[in-house]
């Protein structure tokens, strides 16, 4: 089954359901419902390291999962009070608009189009795209790739703007789109592609898992914000999740956020400066 059809079908479903969604906002805030229920229903994926994936003992883990845990901790003082709904990337918006999840944290890029369908929280990560090459491959770096023009094939995760994204850095390159992260790496490994273009966080994670086999081409572009998302029209709930995320990045839960950041991206964060709030600098 092609992904294109899948996406189209999901979009149609979403559109059909958006028409009936304003009624949902009337029934009290999700915040109260979640508190009464005693656990958070978090939508996320299970197949993309280091964002959301399964450990050897079959537990969901990753940076997205930790953001959900930040919210659960703010709600119940216990980061484990979460029921996970594993969903494909295509299901992120439909599952929010149909109320199957309270909150989705699944490396969701903030765009104007999406913001018309769901309400985004404040960003918890700024992603950029990078290029990864084989260490012993024919191209040494970004300059070599660019010079090779249309001879270069770049494997990329399937997305509506994937083609444009690659062409912003390599205007003539051939773009091959794949369904999942492991397949874009497989394409590089098997020689179907000369470079992988994907999020730098994923590349960094993959290169630390496979030391010395790959190199970063040394060029980054395409900044994008990652935010969690909730249903539109529930200001209380959005405000609550925003507060929880904000304090994880700047306040009392900073250690939780920094520990997670270190685990998944391998970098130490300096604590926010004490005194005048960093937000207003």
């Amino acid at each position, binding site marked *: *089954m092609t992904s294109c059809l899948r996406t189209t079908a999901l979009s149609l479903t979403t559109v059909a359901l958006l028409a009936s969604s304003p009624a949902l906002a009337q029934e009290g805030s999700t915040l109260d419902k979640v508190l009464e229920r005693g656990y958070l229903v978090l939508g996320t994926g299970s197949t993309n390291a280091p964002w959301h994936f399964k450990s050897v003992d079959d537990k969901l883990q990753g940076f997205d999962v930790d953001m959900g845990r930040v919210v659960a901790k703010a709600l119940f003082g216990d980061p484990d009070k979460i029921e996970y709904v594993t969903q494909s990337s295509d299901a992120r918006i439909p599952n929010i608009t149909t109320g199957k999840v309270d909150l989705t944290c699944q490396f969701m890029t903030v765009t104007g189009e999406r913001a018309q369908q769901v309400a985004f929280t404040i960003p918890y990560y700024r992603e950029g795209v990078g290029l990864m090459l084989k260490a012993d491959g024919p191209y040494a770096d970004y300059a070599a790739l660019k010079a090779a023009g249309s001879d270069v094939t770049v494997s990329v995760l399937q997305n509506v703007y994937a083609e444009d994204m690659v062409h912003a850095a390599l205007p003539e390159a051939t773009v091959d789109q794949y369904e999942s992260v492991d397949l874009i790496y497989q394409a590089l490994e098997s020689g179907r592609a000369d470079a992988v273009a994907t999020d730098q966080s994923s590349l960094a994670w993959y290169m630390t898992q496979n030391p010395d086999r790959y190199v970063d081409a040394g060029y980054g572009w395409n900044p994008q914000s990652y935010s969690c998302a909730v249903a539109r029209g529930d200001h209380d709930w959005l405000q609550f999740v925003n507060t929880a995320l904000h304090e994880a990045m700047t306040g009392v839960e900073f250690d939780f956020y920094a520990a997670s950041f270190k685990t998944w991206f391998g970098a130490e964060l300096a604590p926010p400066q004490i005194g005048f709030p960093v937000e207003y600098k």
Partner: protein
Amino acid sequence: MSDLLHFLDQIWLARYVILKGLGLTVSISALAIAAGSVLGILVGLSLTYGNILLRSVVRIYTDFVRGTPVLVLVLASFYILSAVGIDLNAFQAGVLALAVFCSSHVGEIVRGALQAIPKGQTEAAKAIGLTFRQTFVSVLWPQALRQMLPTWVNTAAEMVKASTLLSVIGVAELLLRTQEIISRNFMSLQFYFLAGLLYFVINYGIERFGKYVERKTAVPS
């Protein structure tokens, strides 16, 4: 050699996850095939013997379901049903969608098998004084069943393969489980091969079962 050992080691680490996925795939398929077959027999009977009204309604149902991609049925049963107040979880919604899809195929198989029996037999049965019910039970159905089996096995195997589509709505069947393992160890070729092998084993089991029933129902010669 060390690659193979590494692969075996990874399989061993993921053994429970693989077994859980396999178990879920088998349960989804078994439920969908069983429910779909029962419903499908009713569909087939309606298409063959129903009055014009029943026949038209069932004909629209069959054509609509058969003409719709399984994925669309899966998404519809998960999202659209919940919008009208029937809140099925992902597993239930998935089984429902597959069972409905299966029923439309089995319905056509049953209709085809019944209509392939020459009219003369029904007339002969009538001539020796059998009621329609007796004709159906002793003359038509036993022959139709034998006709149906090979195509039914085909449909059952299709259902097992269609169960992979349930990963889209988050049912942790074998394919999604495999993808979860691959996202951790990036051994995509090896683990997709393993998943392919397991799907083959399930479908081979169905085929053997079909052959067994064929032998049991064969006309003694």
